[in-house]
């Protein structure tokens, strides 16, 4: 019940006019970028990282959390009305959602997506508030070796589980890890990969890399295939959810939440997998053969799953300092920008910040529900912005933000070079998220690795001395080795049969 009292304290802090304004800005911005394909919450938070230099932490994190939740909401609108998923986590929503819109049930599809997101977001945030203190009590016992094992698992899981090719994911991870190495080694004072350039001695700023990979890379990618035909917009009219729709929706909402939250909280997180699972489950459970003709269950489940996953991702981030999605990695960078290291001690040292953040998640969620349905027309209008204007604006903000970090022209050169790298990665289908996670979590993992080795006096067996780290490392190995082995096994079976 201590947590409850602190949560109420958090609400008291979050309901100040200024913080409410930040929540409103965050949710509006988040929905807008969620609606626009190619622009996601990770890019937006990265572009906004420079404001952490002037804003106090509470306001900034309330806004970032709003963007994060809003992005999950916004993706459903384009999925349903345009059959163009705004985010990877709303791909599943597009399948049945667009069919519903074609059948003139657009309003009901949007309704079940919004209410489902709200239900899942609220339950997810409630679970976050309940689970976080419990995880912290467990996490306090975690040593540097255990933490290193966890980070390794997060690396491997994010690289191999998401995306089409594990090899590309791992390669992308290595790019991130390498960029994270640039700078002065904190323990020995040695310079690594600085090529004698004095500005590189402090390392490459996370803002520059993240903005370059997400914003510049995406802008160049869009510019390289600027013109293609417009997409037809389905009407969002039609009757709103009927009693029958509600009856068919509430179970998928809850099941979606049950999939989303744990998957978000696992180091293998991300919101894509639970949406796939939720869709598959609803399809299997459906009594009537409405799937493929616009089944409301196929919209309700995945939309609930991706919002619950968004809440779940915050559990390892706030309790262990372990980001499991690109957006979470950028949030971690924002914490680091304030000199706050998320981890088991965060809930005690920055108690009011964390609880205000959680309270503002509840508020943001409610705002999203209220804002989203009436404003669908506005969100669709956003899609009429010609791409040249949109991306010119993004590039300007990217350059401004990168320059503002250190007021150093070299950062702009780095922005362009890494931006070109980001373009190449998109061009050849390398996922960007592992690179960002490698960049941000890499140095933290390295510090823990070296701390563990310093404690054991260089004895490598210290890394596998606790049962916890052994289990985690085994899971990490399974994540790499498992899928290819399984695939081969299945192929053999197919050949035999």
């Amino acid at each position, binding site marked *: 019940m201590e947590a409850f009292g602190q949560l109420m304290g958090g609400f008291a802090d979050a309901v100040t006019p200024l913080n409410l304004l930040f929540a409103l800005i965050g949710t509006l911005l988040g929905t807008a970028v969620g609606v*626009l*394909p190619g622009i996601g919450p990770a890019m937006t938070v990265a572009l906004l990282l420079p404001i952490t230099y002037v804003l106090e932490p509470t306001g900034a994190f309330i806004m970032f959390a709003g963007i994060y939740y809003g992005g999950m909401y916004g993706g459903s609108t384009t999925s349903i009305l*345009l059959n*163009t998923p705004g985010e990877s986590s709303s791909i599943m929503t597009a399948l049945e959602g667009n069919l519903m819109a074609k059948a003139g049930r657009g309003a009901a599809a949007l309704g079940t997506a919004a209410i489902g997101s709200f239900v899942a977001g609220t339950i997810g945030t409630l679970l976050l508030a309940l689970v976080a203190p419990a995880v912290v009590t467990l996490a306090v016992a975690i040593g540097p070796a255990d933490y290193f094992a966890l980070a390794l698992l997060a690396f491997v899981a994010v690289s191999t589980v998401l995306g089409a090719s594990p090899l590309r994911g791992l390669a992308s991870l290595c790019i991130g890890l390498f960029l994270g190495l640039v700078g002065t080694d904190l323990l020995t004072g040695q310079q690594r990969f600085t090529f004698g350039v004095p500005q590189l001695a402090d390392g490459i700023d996370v803002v520059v890399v993240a903005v370059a990979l997400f914003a510049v890379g995406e802008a160049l990618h869009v510019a390289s295939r*600027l*013109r*293609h*035909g*417009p*997409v*037809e*917009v389905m009407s969002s009219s039609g009757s709103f959810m009927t009693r029958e729709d509600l009856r068919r929706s509430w179970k998928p909402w809850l099941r979606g939440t049950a999939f989303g939250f744990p998957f978000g909280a696992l180091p293998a997180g991300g919101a894509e997998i639970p949406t796939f699972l939720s869709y598959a489950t609803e399809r299997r459970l459906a009594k009537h053969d409405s799937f493929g003709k616009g089944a409301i269950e196929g919209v309700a489940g995945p939309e609930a799953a991706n919002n619950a996953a968004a809440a779940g991702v915050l559990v390892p981030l706030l309790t262990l300092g372990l980001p499991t999605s690109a957006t979470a990695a950028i949030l971690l960078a924002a914490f680091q920008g304030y000199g706050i290291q998320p981890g088991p001690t965060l809930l005690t040292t920055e108690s009011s910040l964390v609880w205000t953040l959680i309270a503002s998640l509840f508020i943001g969620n409610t705002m999203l529900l209220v804002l989203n349905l009436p404003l669908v027309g506005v969100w*669709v209008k956003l*899609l*009429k*912005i*010609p*791409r*040249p204007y949109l991306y010119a604006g993004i590039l300007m903000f990217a350059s401004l933000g990168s320059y503002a970090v250190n007021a150093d022209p070299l950062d702009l050169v780095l922005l362009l070079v890494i931006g070109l790298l980001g373009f190449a990665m998109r061009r050849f289908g390398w996922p960007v998220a592992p690179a960002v996670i490698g960049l941000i979590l890499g140095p933290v993992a390295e510090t823990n690795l070296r701390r563990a080795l310093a404690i054991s006096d260089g004895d490598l067996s210290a890394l596998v001395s606790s049962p916890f780290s052994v289990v985690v490392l085994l899971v990490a190995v399974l994540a790499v080795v498992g899928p290819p082995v399984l695939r081969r096994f299945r192929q053999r079976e197919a050949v035999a049969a």
Partner: protein
Amino acid sequence: MSAVVVGYVPGAEGRAALDAGVAEARLRGARLVVVNTTRGDALVDDRFLAGDGLAELRAELDALDVVAELRQPQTYDDVADDLDTIADEVGADLIVIGLRRRSPVGKLILGSAASRILLTAHHAVLAVKA
């Protein structure tokens, strides 16, 4: 057989252009080529016909007493060039376009497709006010 090319967008100016184009085609005994095109640089462009709007226009053209066809070029480039290219191709006597009132700010920010057509087309252009 000569031809009249109409630049069509949904809305008052497109309607005016289409009506004038039909009248001209009747007068000249020419066939009517209706062009609906887009620059294709935004994800959503509701002036590029699709779905119901497309079906309605097709039905309307089919019901006319002049020979009419609808073209939606998918070059996704300059709209004025699209119109001129098609006019060359069909050997048009005339291009018909609609004009709308533009606010001073609108003139400042956006380039007008109509003025580009008037200035660059190699054919006679009839501009009709909506």
